[in-house]
């Protein structure tokens, strides 16, 4: 378990997450892609904290903030899914092809 292997795992998670966020048509699947990106980012932050940061507490704080971002992303994402479903009866990104006002 070296910094290089940890960062490569994080890079793989971020790459898979980007694929999901760019390719999925369903809003909920798109959010899963964003979650995977944040997963990789948190892993990289913790790796840097543990192996190059000398245990500086700001490294853990950064990960806590990433978790808060994740919670906000989930809450806003689900709210948008409900909102889009009310307006368009669908949860696909293609349903939003025009502006209402």
């Amino acid at each position, binding site marked *: 378990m070296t910094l290089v292997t940890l*960062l490569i795992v994080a890079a793989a998670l971020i790459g898979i997450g980007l694929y999901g966020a760019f390719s999925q048509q369903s809003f909920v699947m798109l959010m899963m892609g964003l979650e995977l990106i944040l997963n990789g980012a948190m892993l990289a932050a913790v790796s840097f904290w543990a192996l190059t940061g000398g245990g500086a507490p700001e490294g853990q*704080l950064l990960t806590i903030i990433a978790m808060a971002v994740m919670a906000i992303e989930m809450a806003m994402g689900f*709210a948008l899914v409900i909102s889009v479903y*009310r307006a368009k*009866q669908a949860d696909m990104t293609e349903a939003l092809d025009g502006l209402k006002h």
Partner: protein
Amino acid sequence: MSAVDIVFYVNAAIAIYAGWRVFVTDSMVRASFFLLISFLAVGVIMLLLAAIYLGVALFFMMAVEMMVMALFMVMFMMNPAGLNPMKMVHQEKVAIGVGVAAFLALGAVALFGEFPSRPVPEGLKPVVSLGHELLGDSMLVFESAGVTLLATMIAVVMLTSHRGRFGDANEGSQPPGLEPGGDPADKPPEDEGGGHHHHHCH
């Protein structure tokens, strides 16, 4: 190879494999559980790195979050059970290119970047040091995150309200066509007389 290394490689493989399966499996509910497995494996790696609080917090947070996600899947998705094959993607080649490019770029940073080697010192209590940081020097950051979460809650209630910003939230709502630009696939909900539309408060 030490036991820590073996546990790390097993969990790294699980995290990446489960992360990839999320976008391949036919069942939406299974997809959210694969995402949960990926997060749990990353949580175990965090525990190996001595970030005890963060690893355990990730377990709890993701267990709840993925249950909510599975619930939403069942509510909104067609075909939640994965009974027929399903692939709902657009611009897939671009997406694969973006993912591979990001992996190669970040992997190159990992391989060729030079980082100092300063491991966590012996005897550092990670939870204690995090607690002192959160309620000490970085309290403003921590509290800002709390206020942001409150603002999110208010925004979420506003967005999900039946009474939308420009009148009724589902006024004039029509299901999408079976092909782009086609007729609506079903009647609009006003004509159905379904039970869940009776509580309009006029």
